[in-house]
């Protein structure tokens, strides 16, 4: 029997705003399956986003949902989680939202290792505003504000998250739909900050400017550049040229922020 997504979707809220071929819908389905697999209770789950096409996701999901301001999802989510550590808190949003305007909140949430799962949809572009370059647009690529090619170097978002202290960091792509839910579920189960970067496609504002004639071309590219970490170990640097590692890139155990704070409360109250 086909998987029932409807039970997690808010009645009457579809159709969504995303363009045909946009990868954000694939990620949403993955997120729904992951939350289901983890047995999350709707009333004890909060889904928080910023602003952008990707950030419209929570509105469709039948949970506690918070559509905040551009870049601020991690900071709002931190408040919810601190106030009610018993809740499961999930952030979702785009590359521009999470890593450019929201970069400061993002790295500090990683550093604190607060128990949240952040699904970061990296479509290499500011989609919602019509395709300006973001902090993850590759150098040389075309965007509406880089008509001569992007002069900026770009972030490796997973590396950024690892460097900032996230204790679970994974990456996959919108092509690898069957991996998205598994990695998100692993992130939800992980105690601490879990970042799941999903390389995503925006055919409307990124694809058409960068010689991906169709959605299929974009998906093929995502398929081609992805190399599972396990396979990469056996590959030469030449073979890895232009590729992106996928799967669980980093996992460690480190004290979680709210648990640490709970210990402070216990100590102060015991004294």
């Amino acid at each position: 029997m086909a998987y029932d997504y409807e039970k997690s979707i808010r009645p009457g809220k579809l159709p969504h705003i995303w363009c045909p071929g946009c990868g954000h819908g694939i990620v949403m389905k993955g997120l729904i399956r992951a939350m289901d697999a983890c047995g999350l209770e709707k009333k004890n789950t909060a889904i928080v986003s910023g602003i952008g096409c990707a950030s419209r996701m929570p509105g469709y999901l039948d949970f506690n949902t918070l559509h905040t301001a551009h870049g601020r999802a991690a900071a709002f989510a931190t408040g919810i989680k601190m106030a009610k550590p018993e809740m499961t808190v999930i952030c979702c949003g785009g590359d521009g939202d999470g890593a450019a305007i929201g970069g400061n909140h993002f790295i500090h949430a990683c550093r604190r290792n607060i128990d949240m799962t952040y699904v970061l949809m990296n479509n290499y572009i500011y989609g919602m505003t019509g395709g300006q370059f973001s902090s993850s647009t590759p150098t040389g690529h075309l965007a509406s504000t880089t008509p001569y090619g992007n002069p900026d170097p770009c972030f490796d978002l997973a590396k950024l998250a690892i460097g900032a202290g996230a204790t679970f960091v994974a990456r996959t792509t919108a092509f690898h739909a069957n991996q998205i839910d598994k990695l998100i579920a692993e992130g939800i189960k992980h105690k601490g900050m879990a970042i799941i970067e999903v390389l995503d496609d925006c055919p409307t504002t990124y694809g058409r400017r960068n010689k991906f004639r169709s959605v299929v071309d974009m998906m093929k590219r995502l398929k081609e550049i992805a190399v599972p970490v396990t396979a990469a170990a056996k590959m030469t640097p030449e073979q890895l040229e232009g590729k992106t590692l996928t799967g669980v890139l980093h996992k460690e155990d480190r004290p979680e922020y709210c648990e640490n704070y709970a210990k402070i409360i216990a100590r102060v109250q015991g004294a």
Partner: protein
Amino acid sequence: MAKKIALLQGNEACAQGALYAGCNFFGGYPITPSTEIAEVMAGELPKIGGKFIQMEDEIGAIASIIGASLAGSKVLTASSGPGISLKQELIGYACIAEVPCVIINVMRGGPSTGMPTGPGQSDVMQARWGTHGDHAAIALCPASCQEIFTETVRAFNLAEKYRMPVQVLYDEIVGHMRERIVFPEPGELEVIDRPAPSVPPEKYKPFDTSFGDVPPLAAYGSDYRFHVTGLNKAEDGFPTTKAELVDAEERRQIRKVECPEARADIESNEEYLIDDAEVVVLAYGSTSRSARYAVNELREQGIKAGMFRPITLWPFPEKRVAQIGEQVKAIVVPEMNLGQMIFEVERVVKNSCKLAGVHRVDGDPLTPSQIIDQVKEVL
């Protein structure tokens, strides 16, 4: 039983007032001259099982308290000029999403970094207009340490009752001054918590106006499940661009504060020797302390002076100030800025009396003699 008495700094009194009001979440970022509030909250909140977090910046700080408030906490942040400038973005968010929160602004001079350790009253208009878009504002301005305590309690009450951000403004002088505080007993001051929804979860709409202009707010993690956005929204909380819904929503959010009943509830003024006054000094915050001294001095010299002190700066006490304008020959407005509230007074009194300002922005307080001189000049 003898009441608890202490010698407290204004900022400490603020933190104590917040705790009295039931504050259980503080998100902050250090800045002079407000930092002591964060320091007291960091020490006190864990004792009562509350939460303190120092965020990465002031935007993060206000974001964290809005998140915590939606999860049911009573929340506070505190800052000063530069930090309040950063918070403006999400003050607007708390307005449109109607999230109770209290923001303390211990004012210093400016703009930009200005004079971090000098007092100022230059954020009066920022408190009214400081975020983009039409919105209502509530701002309270205590003038003593005791009043900082009680006005902080009142700020929480108004935030919870009207479901919106409420700012408390005082300047560095009152923030860092030490005065005797008499702690109210528990129950002595009214403490208001946001009304809980009365409908079952499946009927709940976060902006349901059938309960009046202030819809009840549920909490994340309770049996109620809801959506919140910074977009213009309909009663169910979901974005809308329907002209009539947007219009109704925008107007309601202002009406809930500015309708006569709400104004009567929110406004608070002190009147001193006004009944027979020919000249009134309209002063707020620490400047009112010099103003009171000046009024006494003027009376001794035979000049019929009085003082009007708005404790609620916003909404501005329009009606009463207009009446005073009809009664007196002149109103003098001393401010530790180059003229802000005086424009509001001018708007309200029109040409019914003479109007003059006394301004000081060099980091020293306005003195009674400066006010006295101006009163004599204008009469």
